[in-house]
């Protein structure tokens, strides 16, 4: 099967020359150049944030301050680097001056300008993905010395798994939304939500027949969605010529910006917590499988005890207890949420990985390595871990969907991520009272998005499972994908 595909691919090669790799690398540089400014801003911004977060350290204080200044200077320098996919290059915030649109991209109406930007962002992301896939094929066909490796079969199986590819597509689009959140929204969190009363903008006042300026906060009060008579529906303009792809919140803020920014925090908490719990689950499973006996029994009891406390209730209890500590303040409480999630969620993953780990521990090569005098740590890492990483991927993908549901559930209850920071669950909570009125979009859209994204993560997990281990059926992973019943 592998041979057949590679023959087919060989036949479809564009040019059988050695310059393919160079062309590919050139395309990579071109793609990077388009977004170099944004990347530089992001990296320098992160360094600047880090220095701003360093607590006063006494003697080292002046040095830290200098470094922080440098970081800030670097960040503002990076902002000057032009980027294709930014709201400065393709602005959608403009006004109608009675004859034409002013300040928007090419004088298009705001909706079109925004659509162009979103299309470009996704086009760029898919181009990057295509570039990576081409690179992988190039590597497999021309650069790699061997013709076939066992991993090729896994990749090929996944490529023929439609449901898994659908999941990958959904997950990819979600990740792109989170990564490009500031560029995707029709407005920014800063301007529209956090400091709406320190930003001004111009609009066409049709009653007066002239262009006037007003504060964003003032305009928001006039564009609230609070029922049937006063509402700004999806894909419409409000009274101030501002375009709202998903309508507005009851506070008059833009729902799309809220959701795009909220996807970031969901993704960060999800990835962080799943990564941590995978780490914890893998190391504990390896230790339990290697030593067996009492160590294994102790861990079974510990995980049973953690599982005996319903995960969602444990989350509620711990977010309450840790809310006022210093750790609870990092990144609007998202960091502590990820930690709690990892601390309560590793048990489900541990359960699923323990079986395969126990099987691997009985293989002959583990015995051989032991009699060779290798240290237990090395045996676990080098001879056992590679055989369970696949399972970690499967359950990781399914747990991520559950994590997104659980985080949304907590913010729905008003716990977890603290209020000014956008989170999908809070949008559902804000719109709860208006579902039966004309402003039904506030709760409906975030809920639909959660459903789609979680389905995507589950589908990706299914696809990865079938690719790695075609015989298995991970019904046991079902509980993991539900975020403790939220």
């Amino acid at each position, binding site marked *: 099967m592998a041979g057949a595909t590679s023959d087919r691919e060989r036949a479809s090669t564009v040019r059988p020359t050695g310059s393919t790799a160079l062309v590919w690398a050139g395309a990579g540089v071109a793609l990077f150049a388009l977004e170099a400014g944004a990347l530089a801003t992001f990296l320098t911004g992160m360094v600047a944030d880090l220095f701003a977060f360093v607590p006063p350290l006494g003697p080292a204080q002046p040095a830290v301050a200098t470094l922080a200044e440098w970081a800030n200077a670097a960040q503002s320098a990076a902002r000057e680097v032009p980027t294709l996919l930014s709201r400065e290059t393709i602005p959608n915030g403009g006004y109608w001056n009675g004859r034409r649109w002013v300040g928007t991209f090419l004088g298009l109406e705001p909706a079109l300008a925004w659509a162009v930007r979103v299309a470009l962002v996704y086009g760029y992301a898919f181009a990057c993905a295509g570039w990576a896939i081409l690179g992988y094929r190039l590597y497999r066909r021309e650069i790699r010395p061997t013709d076939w490796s066992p991993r090729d079969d896994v990749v090929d199986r996944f490529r023929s798994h439609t449901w898994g590819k659908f999941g990958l597509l959904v997950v990819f689009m979600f990740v792109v939304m989170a990564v490009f959140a500031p560029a995707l929204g029709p407005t920014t969190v800063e301007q529209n939500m956090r400091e709406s009363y320190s930003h001004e903008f111009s609009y066409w006042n049709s009653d007066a027949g002239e262009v006037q300026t007003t504060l964003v906060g003032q305009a928001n009060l006039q564009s609230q969605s609070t029922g049937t008579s006063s509402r700004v529906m999806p894909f419409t303009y409000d009274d101030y010529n501002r375009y709202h792809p998903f309508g507005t919140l009851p506070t008059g803020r833009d729902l799309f910006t809220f959701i795009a920014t909220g996807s970031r925090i969901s993704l960060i908490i999800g990835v962080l917590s799943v990564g941590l719990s995978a780490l914890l689950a893998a190391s504990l499973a390896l230790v339990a499988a290697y030593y067996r006996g009492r160590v294994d029994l102790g861990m079974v*009891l*510990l995980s*049973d*005890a*953690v*599982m*005996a*406390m*319903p*995960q*969602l*209730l*444990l989350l*509620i*209890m*711990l977010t*309450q*207890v*840790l809310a*006022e*500590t210093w750790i609870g303040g990092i990144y609007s409480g998202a960091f502590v949420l990820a930690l709690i999630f990892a601390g309560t969620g590793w048990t489900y993953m541990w359960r699923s990985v323990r079986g395969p780990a126990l099987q691997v521990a009985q293989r002959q090569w583990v015995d051989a390595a032991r009699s060779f005098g290798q240290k237990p740590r090395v045996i676990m890492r080098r001879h056992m871990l590679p055989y369970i990483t696949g399972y970690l991927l499967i359950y990781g993908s399914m747990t991520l*969907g559950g994590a997104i*549901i659980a985080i*949304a*559930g907590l913010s*729905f*209850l*008003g*716990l977890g991520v603290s209020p000014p920071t956008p989170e999908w*669950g809070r949008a*559902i909570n804000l719109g*709860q009272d208006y*579902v*039966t009125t004309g402003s*039904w979009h506030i*709760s*409906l859209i*975030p*809920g639909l998005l*959660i*459903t*789609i994204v*979680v*389905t995507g993560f*589950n*589908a990706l997990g299914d696809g990865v499972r079938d690719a790695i281990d075609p015989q298995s*059926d991970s*019904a046991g992973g*079902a*509980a993991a*994908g*539900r975020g*403790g*019943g*939220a």
Partner: protein
Amino acid sequence: MSRLTYVAKRFLLAIPVVWLGTTMTWFIIFMGPIDPATRLLSQGQTRNPAAYRAAQEQLGLNTPPLEHYLEYMTNLLTFDLGQTFLLYQGSSVNALILDFLPRTLWLGFWSVLIAVLIGVPLGFYAGMRSNTVADYLASFGGIVWRAMPNFWLAIMLLALLGSLQGMIGVSWQQFLVPIDAISGSPDMSRIGTVDGFLAATKKVLPAAIVLGSASMGNEMRIGRTAVLEVRNEDFVDMAKAKGVSDRALVWKHVLRNALVPLVPIITSEAFLLIGGSVLVETVFGINGIGWLFYRAAIQGDLPLVGTLMYVFILMIVGINLIQDLLYTVIDPRVGLEGA
């Protein structure tokens, strides 16, 4: 190892689980970064040393940690759960739990039942007609149904029921069995009468559907796989060759055997039901213990939170034990593997 010793062993293993769980709860609440005593006091009272000392004394926080821990554990063990401090101030926790628990159990009972009654037949149907349009529709529906957040589904269902009047002309409240409101607590006092039973059932029905949604999707999926597997077994071919009618083949040979892997799934769903009850009870306004837990947590009645966690731990460990018992009844091989 006989079945009896297997069950006995599981029972013995459940004791350290309960102990570890309650110990962790005690540690988080009383040794954690929050002083439970200040949490109990209102803004003005915190500055009053006498009130603070009284609260500390009530909680037993002025005793050494080990002594406090032992006393706490003894109290839990003997179900001497004391009184509440903030929520329903001063009422006995025992009475409170006895008052709230039946509503949660009623909700849980119906959500398990509905999930089983809808999910299993749908999964069997999809499995019997595998790879048809109906199968794909059912399977896809199950997957999406499972990915929906419960709390969102609850809001949407409430909105739908609320606008039923405009759509079909009969409001949900008046439909078949009259009830006073779409959401709210079921009336558990008249459960013995036919009317009371129907009214209480109808009241929790939407909540039960939402709470059971995740399990429904799971049971469907597993039911489908189970039927597919059993259909390929030799004994089915044998029965077919023997001339057993299609009807008898499906009901007696395929479905009965496909039920076996489903039973443990149904009990393990209880984890999700108990966790999800907090959100569903909050949205539907049902005064169950999930709702009580949430209120206690956000109002800062941490001792009550700990006590309720103990109740939840007992419930889950109990369900696990029942599952083990059922295992030995359904699948006699379980105790014999020596696992």
